[in-house]
């Protein structure tokens, strides 16, 4: 039996971004002894990259806003595939979650009368995003981090130990969720610094690991986004929902190559920035789809008037949901009207005075100046789509954030599916983290508390198996079938990124996805032979070799689901099925392990590891449907749904 450090906790939260930290705060406040595990240092999670703001219908800038309007916008943005109860809870609870941050010390930008200021964003009918310049994510993560510290200070005063009830295990990676029968019993992981293994026994585990962007070559995501939580859930027997929906943010940097993919915030457009092609034309006016026709301006003049008089004008089409804008940019570039480096132009320099730009968009100014030698107050930026967010994720219960089929497993934030349907609106991510982070922490604590003396036990065999799996890269040369020399994990990773980018990217075709599945099968076999040099202490090559399992699993989910869904909707665009099909409106695609009882990933290359099933979604509650005009619903819902 492996010698590993073991500790006992009530709730273990995997991930310390916005959702994980909010879950931890909630679980601890409800009395659960809570451990948080994160791959990076505490306070560095990918949430810091969020720029634009937190969507919450507080109505501070336009009093016409309320949760119903926010709910409607969210459903429209997601093309009605959203798990509607999540969208409802999210819209209802977001304002309280934002206000609560102020009581923990957050300092948002203010309105003239001293309330939290709110800005415009794509797909939101009213100015709705609470923000701090263009560094809102940093404010969110820092506030939550400081709240955790505040709770630890409380615990210190009572117990003499800062970590008696709430502890952050930083720079640690979880590789397996452990189970006792059907129930969660804890997690297995390693410390990045020392390479030592550890087990945290806990009846409730909240997965809050974020997204999967590192499987794509051009991405705004950091190295942490290797789909760990998605894979952990799959391996633990929980299904993933609608993994075909991947959001390509329309505006990533395209030049120089080393920064390709880094995000350019949507606030640039929300605050007045416009998109132009190489002919100087504001091309977005040509790309307003039918479902949005009556909601967007038809002329530049009307669009420009909207910023000052939103009640009598319609918004400019630069503020369409992200999937629409990304596709439009892609089409312009393809038609030969792109910028010199294969993007389009995003311009604020002719739209606002320089001092307003540097005040409202300080980090964008900084980013372009430092990394691209571009002064955005004087010249346009070059931008193009970048892989940004996955709408698909762990299938959860809307109210409790409990993963389906695995008692004790919860999920919140980007790793959870359903909330955003086929496409997420900007600003709805940070609010999602807070609303469902809290719900996950709450229900995890409640579940853990309800077990009393019947807690699940950690199975030693599972611990040994997990340890062996984690050590495999160190002995990759020996024992493997006719493989030749070990593979370089960096090379396998680069090939994976190229494959997903080229074959399962923003515009998809059946034969390319089939090709991708073949390539993934090949990479899966090669990843099993990924070998590493050196020892276990802070060894990035080893860490990457282990992350490959997760990226490959998740990539297969994306490719299989994308091949299956023969329509275009939100973050899933098929060249060979270009239209949205109402018959797909109420269809969820679920991915599960093909061999659920297998404790280790299968090596079977041809058939793959993922089995796909379809399910019909629950009908939208009538009072929520009644928030929409019939004429609008006709565009989305199938006939039989309309007349029920």
């Amino acid at each position, binding site marked *: 039996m492996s010698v590993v450090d073991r500790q006992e906790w009530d709730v273990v939260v995997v991930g310390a971004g916005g959702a994980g930290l909010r879950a931890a705060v909630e679980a601890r406040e409800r009395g659960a002894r809570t451990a948080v595990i994160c791959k990076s240092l505490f306070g560095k999670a990918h949430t810091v990259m969020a720029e634009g703001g937190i969507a919450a219908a507080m109505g501070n800038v336009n009093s016409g806003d309320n949760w119903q309007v926010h709910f409607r916008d969210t459903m429209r943005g997601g093309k009605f595939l959203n798990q509607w109860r999540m969208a409802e809870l999210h819209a209802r609870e977001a304002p309280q979650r934002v206000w609560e941050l102020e009581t923990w010390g957050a300092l948002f930008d203010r309105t003239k009368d001293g309330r939290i200021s709110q800005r415009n964003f794509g797909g939101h009918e009213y100015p709705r995003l609470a923000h701090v310049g263009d560094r809102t994510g940093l404010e969110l993560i820092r506030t939550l981090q400081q709240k955790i510290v505040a709770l630890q200070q409380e615990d210190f005063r009572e117990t003499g130990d800062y970590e008696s009830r709430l502890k952050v295990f930083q720079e640690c990676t979880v590789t397996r969720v452990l189970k006792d029968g059907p129930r969660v019993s804890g997690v297995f992981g390693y410390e990045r610094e020392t390479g030592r293994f550890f087990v945290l026994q806990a009846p409730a585990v909240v997965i809050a690991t974020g997204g999967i962007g590192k499987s794509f070559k051009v991405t705004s995501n*950091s190295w942490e986004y290797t789909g760990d939580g998605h894979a952990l859930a799959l391996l633990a027997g929980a299904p993933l929902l609608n993994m075909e929906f991947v959001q390509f943010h329309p505006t990533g940097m395209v030049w120089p190559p*080393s*920064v390709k993919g880094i995000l350019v915030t949507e606030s640039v457009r929300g605050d007045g920035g416009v998109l132009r092609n190489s002919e100087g034309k504001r091309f977005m006016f040509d790309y307003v789809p039918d479902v949005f026709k009556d909601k967007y301006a038809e002329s530049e003049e009307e669009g420009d008037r909207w910023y000052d008089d939103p009640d009598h004008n319609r918004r400019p089409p630069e503020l369409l949901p992200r999937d629409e804008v990304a596709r439009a940019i892609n089409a312009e570039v393809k038609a030969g009207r792109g910028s010199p480096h294969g993007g389009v132009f995003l311009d604020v320099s002719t739209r606002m005075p320089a001092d307003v730009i540097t005040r409202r968009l300080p980090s964008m100014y900084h980013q372009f100046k430092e990394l691209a030698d571009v002064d955005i107050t004087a010249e346009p930026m070059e931008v193009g789509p970048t892989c940004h967010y996955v709408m698909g994720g762990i299938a959860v219960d809307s109210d409790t954030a409990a993963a389906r089929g695995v008692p004790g497993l919860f999920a919140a934030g980007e790793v959870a599916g359903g909330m955003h349907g086929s496409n997420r609106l900007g600003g709805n991510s940070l609010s999602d983290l807070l609303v469902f982070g809290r719900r996950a922490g709450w229900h995890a604590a409640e579940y853990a508390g309800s077990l009393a003396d019947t807690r699940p036990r950690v199975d030693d065999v599972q611990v040994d198996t997990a340890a062996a799996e984690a050590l495999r890269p160190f002995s990759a040369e020996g024992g493997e079938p006719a493989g030749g020399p070990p593979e370089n994990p960096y090379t396998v990773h680069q090939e994976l990124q190229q494959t997903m980018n080229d074959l399962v990217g923003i515009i998809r075709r059946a034969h390319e996805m089939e090709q991708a599945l073949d390539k993934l099968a090949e990479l899966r076999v090669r990843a099993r032979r990924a070998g590493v040099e050196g020892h276990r202490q802070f060894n*990035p090559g080893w860490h990457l070799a282990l992350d490959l399992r997760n990226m490959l699993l998740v990539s297969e989910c994306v490719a299989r689901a994308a091949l299956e869904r023969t329509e275009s909707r939100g973050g899933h665009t098929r060249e060979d099925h270009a239209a949205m099909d109402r018959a797909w409106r109420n269809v969820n695609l679920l991915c599960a392990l093909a061999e659920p009882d297998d404790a280790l990933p299968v090596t079977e290359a041809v058939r793959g590891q993922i089995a796909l099933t379809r399910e019909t979604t629950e009908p939208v509650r009538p009072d929520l449907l009644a928030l929409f005009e019939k004429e609008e619903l006709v565009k989305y819902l199938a006939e039989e749904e309309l007349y029920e």
Partner: protein
Amino acid sequence: MSSYEARFKVWRGDVRGGALEDFRVEVNDGEVVLDIIHRLQATQAPDLAVRWNCKAGKCGSCSAEINGRPRLLCMTRMSVFERDETITVTPLRAFPVVRDLVTDVGFNYTKARQIPAFVPPEGVGPGEYRMMQEDVDRPQEFRKCIECFLCQDVCHVVRDHEENKPAFAGPRFLMRVAELDMHPLDAAEESGLDRKRTAQDEHGLGYCNITKCCTEVCPEGIRITDNALIPLKERAVDRKYDPLVWLGSKIRRRS
């Protein structure tokens, strides 16, 4: 687009010791030092340890010293160096090495815990907070901090003086005290906590002799010395030596 081969010296080792290792490595247009470190990992030194996350100057993970100067690896462009220059990358000097470019920055997390948290005002519920932009401008500047700890690394009070660490919170966390002190609604005073006094007495503000090294290395351009530390010093001094303030504080405490 033009590529060239650069010369690098990267410190490799761990707590038991180490040395600079020489590399020759390809550099392409527009790249930053972190790109080069990644290329070394992918092609020559797969186990080279380095921290990084966002690669966009927003998370403050990839702090190290380049040619002896504390910097973010992701925000240091290769174009600032001559092509024939040898570029030396070493771990942060003020913190114990873990491995290669990774250091143990636990000192900072310990200090963070010692600064009393924001005290919410009594009787003001969520959603009722009202603050004017001009009043939050100052603390907002300090909240731009990405906790890269370059200021903590460069500060001469602790850079080569391990013995000062217990008594000195460092620029980042003295700035945190200043931030809370300038928060329009922080109710520390009402709760009996004098942030200015604790800055002086408990967090070592007196050690700072305003050489502004911290401000110079701040990648966010926060004017740590001028806007946080000096005002905090002035207010701390007012408290300490102004007899009227002293008397006032005694009287108020009694009531």
